[in-house]
């Protein structure tokens, strides 16, 4: 690399000079949303260091500490900053660990949906014919139903196929699987549309001419050129995936009480709404709402920033 005379500007320099960064700096709301999102990510990442208690470890829970109000209440006790739930779980710790589960399921769910959708979209667009028709018909049928209904169905059916009592890790995988299966359609349609445009370009013809097999052309040459819109969909879908996980857990079809996500915490708290223990439902609810709102705002901004036509 020492031989090149004019060194091209580095990635950071180019990023700082870009339109996307400029539009980011212009919008205070977007910056606030990014700060909140980053805060949540860090909190989830370092949950083990921040939280006073490991809420997944039954040995650390004392029933004598159950249903304590937040610390600013006269009956509040240290170290339970935001109070405790019915099992003596510290709410702050439960929220931090629950955040971790919610974000993990959200990310993995979106990744699975994107992988599935991109693969099917690539194949449908590139191969065409009957394959295309079958894949897109399935997509059409699925689009008639709301994602939450599909997720609930997949969740129920998968659990009945696996059968018996499931441990928390399996349930987490089932959740990722259901969310992936309910959100792939949008990726598949977008990728297919872009592939139909790309596959008639010269570089694809050249790749075909030198005898590259179709899977290689799809993965190495077409795929990088259709990924832009996918990124935007993925950001917007992250918020949706987190809501879907929370809803499934709230409905009692998601994470168990022993390893609660935000939705599970809200479901538990909902039982104590009438007995005056408002903090058990309020804090997880606020955390979830803030997280989703921040990611939504980021997604909206990213869509506008990456798509000059919408400006």
């Amino acid at each position, binding site marked *: 690399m020492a031989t090149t005379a004019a060194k091209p500007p580095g990635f950071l320099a180019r990023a700082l000079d870009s339109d996307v960064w400029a539009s980011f700096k212009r919008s205070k709301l977007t910056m606030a949303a990014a700060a909140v999102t980053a805060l949540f990510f860090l909190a989830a990442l370092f949950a083990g260091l921040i939280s006073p208690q490991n809420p997944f470890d039954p040995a650390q829970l004392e029933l004598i500490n159950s249903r304590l109000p937040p610390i600013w209440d006269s009956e509040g006790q240290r170290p339970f900053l935001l109070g405790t739930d019915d099992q003596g779980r510290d709410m702050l710790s439960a929220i931090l660990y629950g955040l971790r589960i919610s974000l993990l399921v959200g990310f993995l769910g979106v990744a699975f949906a994107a992988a599935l959708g991109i693969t099917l979209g690539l194949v449908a667009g590139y191969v065409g014919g009957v394959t295309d028709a079958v894949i897109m018909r399935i997509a*059409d049928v699925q689009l008639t139903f709301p994602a939450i209904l599909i997720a609930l169905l997949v969740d*129920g059916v998968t659990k009945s*196929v696996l059968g018996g009592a499931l441990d928390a890790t399996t349930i987490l995988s089932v959740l990722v699987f259901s969310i992936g299966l309910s959100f792939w359609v949008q990726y598949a349609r977008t990728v297919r549309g872009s592939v139909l445009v790309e596959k008639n370009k010269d570089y694809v013809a050249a790749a075909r001419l030198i005898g590259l097999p179709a899977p290689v052309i799809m993965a190495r040459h077409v795929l990088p050129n259709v990924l832009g819109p996918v990124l935007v969909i993925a950001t917007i879908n992250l918020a949706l995936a987190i809501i879907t996980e929370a*809803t499934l857990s709230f*409905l009692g079809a998601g994470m168990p009480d022993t390893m609660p996500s935000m939705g599970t915490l809200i479901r538990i708290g909902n039982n104590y709404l009438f007995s005056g223990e408002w903090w058990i439902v309020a804090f997880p609810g606020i955390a*979830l709402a803030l997280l989703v709102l921040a990611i*939504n705002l980021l997604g909206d901004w990213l869509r506008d920033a990456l798509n000059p036509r919408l400006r």
Partner: protein
Amino acid sequence: MLAFIIRRALQALGVLFTVGVIAFAMFRFAGDPVNQIVSIDTPAAEREQVRRSLGLDDPVPVQFVRYFVRAAQGDFGISYQFRQPVAQLLLDRMPATLELAICATIFALVFGIVMGVYSALRRESVLAKVFQAVSLIGISLPTFLIGILMIYLFSVSLGLLPSYGRGETVRLGWWSTGLLTWSGWKALIMPSITLGLFQMTLIMRLVRAEMLEVMRSEYIRFARARGLKTRAIHFGHALKNTLVPVITIAGLQLGAVIAFAIITETVFQWPGMGLLFVQAVQNVDIPIMAAYLLLVALIFVTINLVVDILYTVVDPRLRSTLRQPV
């Protein structure tokens, strides 16, 4: 026109068929139906007899056709948890869900249109900005959180409205309605708002965008030039022309509202089909899940078909393009 309707109807049947295959596959292959019906210590011979009486030893295609024929006659099998015909269970709960969905849609239409028109006509006013903020929250907040918040406000703190159930219901034939009693109406308020909030924001945004678009058009300028009153222009000309897409969307969304009622019904313990479905998922009651899926598919497909046909009836421009053979 007739060819168009027939083609759309065939497409609808295709969707129903696909969903039917999925429902049958769930019914047949997700878990052994015999195990759900007999107890653990039932002898093998008896199990075999149950299996034969359910027709589970027939070839799969035969079972599939039988499932279809029975489903078409309204027989969806016996629920594992309730030991009652699924069709009867669903039918008992259908009025609750339909009343809730229709009230939510009416709420969404009325408030969505009013708020949309206002924020289009007074774009810079404070209230319009408030409406925009509300719509952002309505789209971001999960439905169940909105429900819990409302229960906390109006049931726990103020004690104004009931937090669960339908209140008193009156039976009109097989239909049980909550619309004829005061407590029924009170019970309906919070679930309807919770369920309709998302549609309301959708309609508000749509009306606002459409109104802004229409207000720029030539015929509005012409109406101004004719010296018509502002009120007549806004409501007689502009709003009237925005309503066709709005009502279409509201109609198409009715299916989604019925499906989304799952969440609202769980929060408010509303005794509808959605609550039945959630309980079925929790208890792996496959016959109910399969039947609910088929029923929702039928509702969706019917609504889409009706809207498609109405659209061509309402808008003659679409009809002329249809006449030409494609």
